[in-house]
């Protein structure tokens, strides 16, 4: 059993383990919410296939824990290089204004 403090520590490691990390409802293959699906589609459009996706519907502690970790009230949540980027609205706007291409370039991902 994991205490809240342990979970926060684990989250710190989880977001750093992979260049792109997404906390979502469902999985990339089967998103369970329109907003999570939007994030998956945007990443796919930019050729980001290799990312860590964690399904918060499978773990209620994770679902609350990640909100506390990022001080962000909603799911999905996207992290680049261990840094919180935002939710679906922010990723969509970054996609529309070109910032996403730049940010992915910094990660060494060409979209």
């Amino acid at each position, binding site marked *: 059993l994991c205490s809240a403090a342990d979970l926060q520590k684990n989250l710190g490691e989880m977001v750093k383990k992979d260049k792109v990390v997404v906390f979502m409802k469902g999985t990339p293959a089967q998103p369970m919410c329109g907003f999570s699906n939007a994030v998956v589609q945007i990443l796919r459009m930019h050729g980001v296939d290799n990312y860590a996706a964690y399904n918060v519907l499978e773990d209620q502690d994770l679902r609350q824990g990640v909100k506390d970790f990022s*001080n962000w009230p909603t799911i999905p949540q996207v992290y680049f290089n261990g840094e919180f*980027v935002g939710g679906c609205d922010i990723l969509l*706007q970054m996609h529309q204004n070109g910032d996403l291409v730049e940010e992915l370039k910094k990660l060494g991902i060409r979209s």
Partner: protein
Amino acid sequence: MISAPMTEASRTSAQSLRSDSITAFDMSVTADHIRDRLIKELAAVHVDVEDTSPNRCAASFKVLVVSPQFENKPLLQRHRMVNTCLAEELKEIHAFEQKTLTPEQWKKQNSQ
């Protein structure tokens, strides 16, 4: 278009009322309630609130907030300001979409 002009006086009273309005919060979040809060706390000059609940299974809203307080602030910080302003309400809201613009960006978007 300015839908909610604010006087200096009403802004000050809105800030002092902040704690009261939190205790007065009654579980049913309405579009008007969200609009009022954003106008009062973020000095928003234009707010659109769309109640998207009928499309979903629970309380859902889509907001456009135009505020001079967003100037020189990155997108993430703007969204955090809105989240903080509506922290109590968001606990009851299932889905929440937001767009944050400065008055200048809003004018530019409308002229396109």
